[in-house]
């Protein structure tokens, strides 16, 4: 499903060059639930962003669902992100100007889907995360846990094969964190969605099929 070969990522700013990832080799199979762990600044987000096609590797080969992404243009990258991937972020990243329902519809706006059908799919996704009663609220009117559930609904509304979650429970208390973890697990078990999750929490990492450990940009396990 996801293959990384000899991946390096270098960030260049005016003063410094940061080698954020060094010689990463990774194979994640269809339907796996993988966690990524490691100390702050070791390159976890960088790795997830590369897999999510939000950034490009400095060196190495990246294959997603059998497709080389090296050299792909804006339009084909956008199409792949839209169809194959769903993101969940630590700080939710809901659009404050949009209602819950409109936020969840975002991925569908970039497909050829009629407005009525969009709404139906978005409501179904919100139902799955248990938020059917809040669809016309604005993000600021919801608790952190609720916002993250909206974000998950948005990530799964387009039925992507891969869901990428960057510390999805990092901003939540442990009860809410458990809830979110439960939803991701169900998604993996029932739908067979491949889930890659960055976490600091050993408890959650143990519930995943496999843990990748990074240290200083290198894969240590």
């Amino acid at each position, binding site marked *: 499903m996801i293959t990384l070969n000899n991946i390096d990522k270098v960030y260049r700013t005016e003063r410094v060059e940061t080698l954020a990832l060094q010689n990463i080799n990774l194979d994640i199979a269809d339907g796996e639930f993988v966690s990524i762990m490691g100390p702050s600044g070791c390159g976890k987000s960088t790795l997830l*962003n590369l897999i*999510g096609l*939000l*950034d490009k590797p400095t060196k190495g080969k990246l294959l997603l669902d059998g497709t080389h992404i090296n050299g792909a243009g*804006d*339009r084909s990258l*956008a*199409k792949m*992100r*839209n*169809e194959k*991937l*769903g*993101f969940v*972020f630590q700080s939710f*990243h*809901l*659009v404050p*100007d*949009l209602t819950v329902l*409109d936020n969840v*519809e*975002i*991925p569908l*706006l*970039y*497909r050829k889907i009629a*407005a009525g059908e969009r709404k139906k799919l978005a409501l179904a996704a919100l139902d799955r995360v248990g938020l059917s009663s809040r669809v016309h609220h604005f993000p600021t009117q919801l608790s952190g846990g609720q916002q993250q559930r909206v974000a998950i609904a*948005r990530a799964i509304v*387009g039925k992507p094969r891969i869901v990428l979650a960057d510390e999805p429970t990092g901003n939540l208390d442990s009860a809410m964190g458990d809830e979110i973890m439960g939803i991701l697990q169900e998604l993996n078990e029932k739908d067979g969605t491949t889930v890659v999750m960055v976490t600091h929490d050993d408890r959650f990492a143990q519930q995943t099929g496999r843990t990748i450990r990074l240290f200083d940009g290198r894969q240590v396990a």
Partner: protein
Amino acid sequence: MNIANLKLAFRVLARRKVFTAISLVGITLTLVVLMVATAILDNIFAAGKPESNLDRMLFVTVVGRYSKDMSQTSQPGYGFLQKTIRDLPGAERYAYFTQLQTAVIYSGAQRIETQMKRVMPSYWQILDFHFIEGAPFTAADDAADRPVAVITDALRDKVLGPGPAVGRTINLGGQKYRIAGVVSRVPITRMSAYAEVWVPIGAVTAELQRATIGEYNGLVLAHSRDDFPALKREFNTRVANYTTADDRPGMETRSGLDTAFEALARPMLNNPANTDAGLVLRTIFVTLALIFMTLPALNLVTLNLSRILERAPEIGVRKAFGAPKRTLIAQFVTENVILTLLGGALGFIFTIIALAALNHTSFIPEAQFNVNARVFGYGMLIAIFFGVFSGFYPAWKMARLNPVNALRGGAL
């Protein structure tokens, strides 16, 4: 442009009240100026009483005479028009009329200055004045050289007071004229129609018959615009063959049979032979409008750019979920166009107020500017253009944001 984009645009504008207000002030001011200019041009160049046939009218307003050692441009003389526009094949009618002349009316002890045109009887059939009373003077009046006049209701009120005036006389420059008809006053923007008193051309002397230059304008009414090219061609042939007894060798005469717009362009560009005068003037107008728009557009660009950072996370999210650059550009340009259209709608209201003020003050005497659906349409087109013009660069810049940096709310 889809519904989701429109909904979002309105919501964003409603939530960013300060930005919306500041932007709207600049946009509205800009569009008011452009719409007032559009309304004035519309009142001059679009058909409207008494120039209801303006779309079928052609004018001769300039004659140029050129030889090796001299050049001279002036208004056409009677003789020149006789040889060039009388009985043009395919034309419906033709007429000559003088430029505006100041004439003095003596009424008792009063001395009233007034604007006068001398016109051929056929003039009244090409233009559709609204006769409140009486009728135009006729070919018979003209042939018999009778002193008859048509006046506006405004002049009648000033000289004779309200009430029937036909048959009464006025003392115009020391000669008595019988009033044949009274018409509603005419806006000054109706160039071929505007005057306060109209009288026949009168006796045509031998000198007038010979005059190449003088104080006349020629007016030709075509059956349709489609006949313009043929009429112009025939006119140009006649001008090319035009000679007078006192022509020196090598003397060349140039002139043009022009639409109202081309007729304005010709003297401004100081080139009687330039047949593309209309196009050049149109280009000048559009360029002026663009230059005028540039500063407020840059202002809006700056405001929009400063707003990018605020919206960076949204852009990051949209990109992460598959928005291609193009779609994002379309979204932000749509938002900007909606803002400028709001400015356009406000601008239109202020334009109506500004024109009413112009009409009621004596800043432009005899102005009767009005707006209509066409001016509104042009106004909205200008607003849309302004929106695209000022929205594209910020939108492009936004759409180029790196999604990772954008999600962190990072720099450009």
